[in-house]
């Protein structure tokens, strides 16, 4: 029962946690570049500033889909944190990304369209990997439920290290980190799908990114089983890895991203699946 309460608290506090993570990330990233960086609460200051702005929309459908992106992502995260079915979680997450992509398609903005096309390709790059990981977890725990992975005594990491590596390789795509940040590439498509949002409506898309952080780190926790300490260790490792990677690599184009993801990450996850199914 306590687990349930913890989950519910985590779900409610998810945007807060994600915001703090994002703030901290900006500091770490700045320090890596020998800058001081913004204060920890900078994302929240931005949040309040955005709320104050004049309300502008391209059209209502576009703004509404942005809001629904946030809500559906929160819902996907809730199902994950409550230990729900992983296949369902992946589908729900896909849906929420799809809503954002659709919102971009619904405008007549060139950059939104470019960004949406690229985001769609990114989904193709990471979604199969996630499903393979879910199936591997099923083979080890006998259940598709995230709860089974959270409560397994032996951390899944020991049985599926390659899948973990595969996850590390697709996370930058999901979190739009260099070298795989083609979808929002600021210098090329000026933010892509996010471009046409502003003010209070941008708020939804902006905080959805925080939720995505929590979502991704929860996926990391899946690998640690009931061993919380290992979970935190893995998360810290992932955190540093992601930021170091983001700071030290240059953006590749979407074809290279797709090729790498389906060639390397997908193969790794698949080899892991094969090992799991053969042993």
């Amino acid at each position: 029962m306590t687990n349930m309460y913890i989950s519910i608290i985590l779900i409610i506090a998810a945007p807060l946690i994600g915001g703090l993570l994002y703030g901290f990330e900006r500091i770490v990233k700045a320090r890596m570049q020998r800058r001081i960086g913004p204060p920890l609460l900078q994302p929240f200051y931005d949040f309040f500033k955005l709320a104050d702005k004049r309300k502008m929309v391209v059209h209502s459908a576009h703004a509404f889909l942005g809001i629904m992106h946030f809500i559906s992502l929160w819902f996907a995260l809730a199902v994950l944190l409550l230990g729900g079915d992983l296949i369902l979680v992946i589908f729900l997450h896909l849906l929420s990304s799809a809503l954002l992509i659709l919102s971009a398609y619904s405008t007549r903005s060139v950059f939104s369209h470019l960004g949406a096309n690229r985001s769609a390709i990114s989904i193709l790059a990471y979604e199969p990997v996630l499903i393979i990981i879910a199936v591997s977890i099923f083979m080890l725990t006998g259940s598709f439920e995230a709860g089974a992975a959270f409560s397994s005594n032996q951390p899944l990491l020991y049985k599926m290290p390659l899948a973990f590596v595969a996850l590390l390789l697709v996370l930058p795509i999901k979190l739009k980190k260099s070298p795989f940040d083609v979808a929002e590439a600021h210098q090329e498509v000026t933010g892509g799908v996010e471009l046409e949002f502003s003010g209070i409506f941008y708020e939804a898309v902006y905080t959805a990114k925080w939720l995505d952080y929590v979502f991704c780190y929860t996926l990391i926790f899946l690998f640690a089983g009931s061993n919380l300490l290992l979970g935190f260790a893995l998360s810290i490792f992932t955190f540093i890895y992601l930021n170091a990677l983001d700071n030290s690599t240059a953006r590749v184009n979407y074809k290279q991203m797709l090729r790498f993801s389906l060639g390397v990450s997908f193969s790794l996850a698949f080899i892991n699946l094969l090992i799991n199914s053969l042993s």
Partner: protein
Amino acid sequence: MESYLSGLFFLPLLVSLLLLILPKNLVKPLVIVAAVALSAMSVIAFSNISGAQYITAPDYTNNIVFGLDVLLLCFFGWVAIQRKSLWVGILSVVQLAGLIYLFFNLSHTQSAQLMVDELSGFMFILINVISSIIAIFSLKYIEQEDCSPFRRKYFLSIIFWFIAAMNLVVSADNLEYFFLFFELTTLASYLLISFRKDEVSEKNAVTALWMNQIGGVALLSAIFYIHLNQLGDITFTNLLSNTGQQAILLPLAFISIAALIKGAQMPFSKWLLGAMVAPTPVSALLHSSTMVKIAPFVILRLSPALKDTSLSMVIIGLTAFVFVAAALGALAQDNFKRILAHSTIALLALMIMMAALGTPTTTIAALVLILFHGISKSMLFLNAGILEKVFHMKETSDMDRLSETGPFTAMVMIIGFMSLLLPPFGAFIGKWLSIETLGSFAIESKLLGALTIVAVAFGGAILTLLYFKVIGVLINRSGETDKISFEKTGMIYRATMYMLLGIITFSIFGLPWLLTQYFSPVSEATLQQAATVTSEGWNMLIGSVSLPIVPLAIAFLMLPATLLTAMFIRFKNVDRAKEYMCGEKVNYSFGSFYFSTEVATPWFYSIGIAFFLAMLMVSLL
């Protein structure tokens, strides 16, 4: 049961004759009355079926069947001479020779020729209800077609005897009878595809003809093999009662090959893609409720015998491959109908795979997919017809701003696409059940299972991407007008859309009921093995797979509610901003991404052929 079956056969046959001779003003009421009667009859027939019922036809029908077969093959031979197609000619002659030999050497035992069980009933509903709606739609469509008044009646007439033939395909037990109706559907598709009488139509119709005739030859081979090796009656029942014997593997392989050809699996996908040149209701008919659905039906029929054989492994391998290859093919298309056609082939592969796996859960998944795919695809194809006749659009890239010029059509199409693969609709359940059962399958059969999961995961992702790409085009609008007024497309068009929308709405809200009362009994009767659908706490158990009800229900409502609300919602007290254009004042046309599969297509076909040969090889060994 006999009376229902003869009703389902003779009524459409009668209607098709009447349509040819009655004056023009009686056509419309006749079609509508027949459509209603057929739909009602199929539902009543289904609710009256309990267990397999055998129906013995009178002796003279054997001669009638033989006579019709010969006539049919002579017609094909005539087509071969007229179109100078060597293939059609050879195949017709081979079939004719085989048939005559069989007629004089095969002992016509007194075993029943027809068999109706829950699975046939399930197919009755799909065939009659959906095809009836398509027939009603065709009333208006064919009026706008450039052809003589008689050919218009002739078109409707073919549709009705096609329905009659389909109703008997799914209730034939004797393989000779099955062969006749199988060939009749081939004939119907030939006539429908060549309806427009231009060069491309004729060419594609001939392609469809010879490809499907290979299926006919395969069926005859199966009959020959059973006859020569004295394996008993040439019936499905007999084959199924010998489940587990090595000897029946080869006839099973032949029948499966015939089915997979009808189901347009690679390399035979070409005939279905070519069928696109026909008037759009034909595509709707072939893709949703008739023709291609023979494939998953036959595999389901055979699934108790196929299960765990080397043959079924090859079929699973083939369909896993086709699922991905056809999904990729779909992503390469711009023409709306071609996108739909490729995705039909992909989803058929998924259905056949589920049927071949043969566990209670996968059987339910296959049934769910068959039904929902039928509903959604017919809706989308009929809309393609409306787009073509009312809006004069054929490519998706032309559909830009459809949500402003034709908001109703855009809305219906969005619903159609959502219902194809995504929650809240049944097809999503189908896909989900597949992944979850394949998980168990992979534990049992290792490499193949793992590869199959990869294919489903991958193909599923590609298809989702594809559907969102098209939905993206459909919801595109400028912010200049806020007003939405539904366009006028005509009474019949609108009415058929409402019917299909009604069926879809019913299926969403009735899904729990449908699962327990509709899909589960059919699956149980097909496999002779209980397929339990129960609820346990907050979970719904379908066989071994448990579905969480609450998150599913929320997800069920969220997506359609979101997309529909997005079409109509208008925020108050907001200002409108122009899109960011980097300061440019150029009119852009919006493209999308495509993958080119032209280079890969010959490879796809070769791999497909290899799989088909492998089906025969593993059965021989």
